[in-house]
């Protein structure tokens, strides 16, 4: 675990040609850096007004050689991204100027920030919640426009605010419930079961909708996992290379070429697909190849979709039939007949096996590949495409919401009578805790506090 109270610096803009490049410094020594490196045009010292853009020269301490002319911005703790003192220097574009400025800062004994460290500090200081912090990471790694859009939304607290809304509704109900339980002398009448549960039911419905958005959100974020499976030499690796538009996997006429799984991310007409090439399935005397087959089966069990490849230039073997049948029973799959550029055998055998004639493709000529991509996209989006503007994208989010929903539903059931009001309150408290840990915070003390604001509580 790294230190969190020292000063860190990094170039904050992406590499490449750009109009400007920003160097960011955060921590207790940010002001020292400003004092040590920044000078007015005439060489004299300059003091920065917080939150005002100031033109300055960055100089080498000692000989006052000008490194770059920058716009300097100082944000004083806690009003900054990390809630520490933050200095941002807008350097001239390209890497060279920013790197030179960074060198000068490092020379002052400031540490180079690790990936995500500014954000980590922002989270640890309570500036952003956990969902936002996760979104920052997801934005950086976003592969598609959809993923980017969704995670920008998360960063802008779209999900966090929705979760806070649910928490508030639960909290309001708890205020009634807890006063009812803790102040019997106050003649508090519990609202009718209906008045009490109606808002809870609304929240439960919203949670359900959210949960349904997960399959699409997950695809958008991490890509739709597709494992390519088949007997040796059917052309799996060739297909992977074709779809990936690069020579990722070794292709050879030798059966049993691929051993380890090979993963690539592709963009299938807008849908992010995570392709996994695997070893050809067969029993072998070779220990390494056998291990490859074990890995292939593991990849199959982890995938959302199997892409079964058959070699159309020869007849199905009995093992192939057997394999195809068990895989087909196992879950969702797409079958393709490869090598359509060769003389295809009548595909009757496959049809008999699967009930329909699979798509014919050629990993050499590219025939059928457009159609295959379309099929992949369709499966990735479960046919519907994006189901929600702000879907759940992480398993953690899904699990927390599901756990909270279970508690809310149980609470609603218990509130049919006052006799179980204590257990009902417990359920709603647990639901709130699940949501709080989704965001990374929350205390029941707030509820105690709220009781007093709303009710007249006598002795």
């Amino acid at each position, binding site marked *: 675990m790294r230190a969190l109270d020292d000063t860190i610096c990094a170039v904050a803009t992406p590499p490449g040609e750009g109009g400007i490049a920003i160097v960011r410094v955060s921590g207790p020594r940010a002001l020292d850096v400003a004092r040590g490196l920044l000078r007015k045009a005439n060489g004299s010292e300059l003091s920065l007004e917080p939150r005002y853009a100031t033109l300055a020269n960055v100089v080498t301490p000692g000989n006052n050689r000008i490194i770059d002319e920058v716009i300097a911005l100082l944000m004083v703790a806690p009003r900054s991204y990390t809630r520490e003192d933050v200095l941002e220097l807008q350097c001239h574009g390209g890497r060279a100027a920013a790197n030179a400025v960074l060198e000068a800062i490092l020379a002052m004994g400031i540490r180079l920030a690790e990936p995500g460290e500014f954000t980590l500090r922002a989270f640890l200081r*309570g500036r952003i919640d956990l969902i936002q912090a996760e979104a920052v990471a997801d934005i950086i790694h976003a592969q598609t426009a959809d993923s980017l859009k969704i995670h920008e939304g998360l960063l802008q607290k779209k999900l966090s605010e929705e979760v806070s809304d649910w928490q508030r509704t639960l909290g309001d109900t708890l205020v009634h419930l807890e006063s009812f339980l803790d102040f*019997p002398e106050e003649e508090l009448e519990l609202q009718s079961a209906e008045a009490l549960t109606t808002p809870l039911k609304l929240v439960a419905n919203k949670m359900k909708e959210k949960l349904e958005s997960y399959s699409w959100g997950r695809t958008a974020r991490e890509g739709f996992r597709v494992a390519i499976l088949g007997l040796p030499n059917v052309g799996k690796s060739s297909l992977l290379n074709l779809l990936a538009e690069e020579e990722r996997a070794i292709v050879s006429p030798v059966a049993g070429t691929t051993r380890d799984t090979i993963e690539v991310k592709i963009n299938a007409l807008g849908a992010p697909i995570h392709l996994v090439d695997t070893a050809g399935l067969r029993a072998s005397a070779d220990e390494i190849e056998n291990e490859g087959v074990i890995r292939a089966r593991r990849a199959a069990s982890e995938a959302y979709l199997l892409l079964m490849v058959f070699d159309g230039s020869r007849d199905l073997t009995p093992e192939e039939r057997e394999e195809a049948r068990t895989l087909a029973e196992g879950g969702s799959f797409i079958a393709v007949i490869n090598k359509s550029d060769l003389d295809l055998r009548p595909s009757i055998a496959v049809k008999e096996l699967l009930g329909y004639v699979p798509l014919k493709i050629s990993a050499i000529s590219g025939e059928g590949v457009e159609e295959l991509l379309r099929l992949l996209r369709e499966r990735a989006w479960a046919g519907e495409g994006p189901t929600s503007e702000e879907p759940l994208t992480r398993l953690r989010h899904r699990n927390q919401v599901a756990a909270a929903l279970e508690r809310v539903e149980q609470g609603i059931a218990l509130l049919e009578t006052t006799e179980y009001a*204590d*257990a009902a309150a*417990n359920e709603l408290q647990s639901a709130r805790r699940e949501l709080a840990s989704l965001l990374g915070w929350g205390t029941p003390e707030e509820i105690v506090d709220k009781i007093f604001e709303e009710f007249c509580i006598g002795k």
Partner: protein
Amino acid sequence: MEWRKGYDVAVVGAGHAGIEAALAAARAGAEVVLFTMDIDAAGKMSCNPAIGGVAKGHLVREVDALGGEMGRAIDATGIQFRKLNTRKGPAVWASRAQADRHRYSDWMRSTLSKAKGLSFRQEEITGLWVERGRLLGLHGISGMRYRANAVVITTGTFLNGRIHIGMESMPAGRAGDPPSVFLASDLKERGFPMGRLKTGTPPRLDTRTINWASLTEQQGDINPTPFSVDNECITQTQLPCHITYTNAKTHEIIMGAMDRSPLYAGVIEGVGPRYCPSIEDKVVRFSEKERHQLFLEPDSRDLTETYPNGISTSLPLDVQQALVNSIEGLEEAEILRPGYAVEYDFCDPTALFPTLESKHLDGLYMAGQINGTSGYEEAAAQGILAGINAALKVCGKSQMIVGRHEGYIGVLIDDLVTKGTKEPYRMFTSRAEHRLLLREDNADLRLTPFGIKAGVITDSRKKSFKRREEERERLRVFVNSRNITPSPLLNDHLNALGTAPITSPVKLVDLLRRPEVTACDLKQFVDNWPVTDERSEVTVEVETKYEGYIRRDRESLQKLLSLETMAIPKDLDYKKVAGLTIEVSQTLESTRPLTLGQAQRIPGVTPAAAAVLLVHLRKVGAA
């Protein structure tokens, strides 16, 4: 001059905290001295003559489970017993009783005088006797020094107490008692962090001047369950309370006198409790409410004093009289003693460990209202724990800490020492995260083992505890194994309860799971019912009905416990824990939590910071 005899434990204050502390320390075998300003005022109820209520009733039973006196005292001197919240779920069922205020404190006084190893002395304590940073004992106003190995301070509302009636104010610990000024300055000078709080009490009325005929009567329960497991039943006759309300006229009188309210005119600076507001507070804050309820409670069996519960006030006496007379039934009522507000110093409880021992002075314990709480039960709960720990400390035995999942005592003390308080702290069931586990009916099962371990439980109590444990187990086995066969009588009874009759034999437990059916309903239809104590029936019944919830609560607790109980070395240098922000490490440094669980609850310690700490502890633990 030094007193000729030294003591193991010295307790300052014979209020509800001090009494339990002194008795518990003596039970644990310590040589104890108890100092108080006025022996006649031992165990005095400064305010409401009642014990128990929601969450407070739970505390009384926990004190009783640890061998404490409060439960026995109220059982013997109660004049009306009522179970509250009977239709709201078993975790919040709560016992409350009106006390004969005089007989209650007589009971305490006589218990103290009979306790072995305990001397009782009237002496105002003026300061701690400390030499070279070590606590040696106490200084008395008589000029005497008392040597003691451990000290428990329980001075209630007395430290720099000042009472207010209208714009008049005078130094006092409570009406009729002088304040404790020297001790307050001594503690302040020694650097104990202190703050100021306020609370109030209503005027007392002359019973003979109330028009009872016009008021609604409220009777006690027919067959109340005693507070103490030592008692089988309550036999004394009970007295009724009466209910009346404030009205528009009352509110008008109050609003018209606001300029003479010390609360609103800014004379009082201490923070008062939001949940026990004065009537002037209620009228201002809840202006939309047309009336506020009042309970007229008898203060004793023999005397003619009535306590009007609900109109605590510090308005001037003439206004108090007028507002009382504006209320139905009180038109002719005369005030016996005026209501007043009291302001007092308290010591910031975050300077204490969860054992109630000071972090700054070894061997010094604090308990009761001095720690920022309010209420007799809260005081007694802290008192008994502090007394036990002071005695354990003197014998060099390990300290007793009750977890939040084990008792309200645990919740109360953990809240205080971890979060501190900005207003007088009162116990609520909603403060307990594991409310379903912390019920009145199982207080005995939860906490008696703590008492046994600490050596404060008598042999006969140990025996009866074992019996109660076995009874419950017997009944559990019985309801889970025995069938009940349908009969016209049983089915009539089930119909009458509003639940379906049975057509073939079923397990008792299956009927008991039904919300409408109690153990009491069933026992008349089966032979050889294995228990006699109703309290056992309640426990088994609740456990049966709440089985799923209780199990889930336990499971989630198991997950928490490994973190909760992960110890933090006392000398941990938080500055050296990489990853903690400066603010958080300072907060931790000043609170010095004993476990990771406690650390997590400190305000300002973020979940992320707790995670950093966890990683560090694991690393240290592995090394």
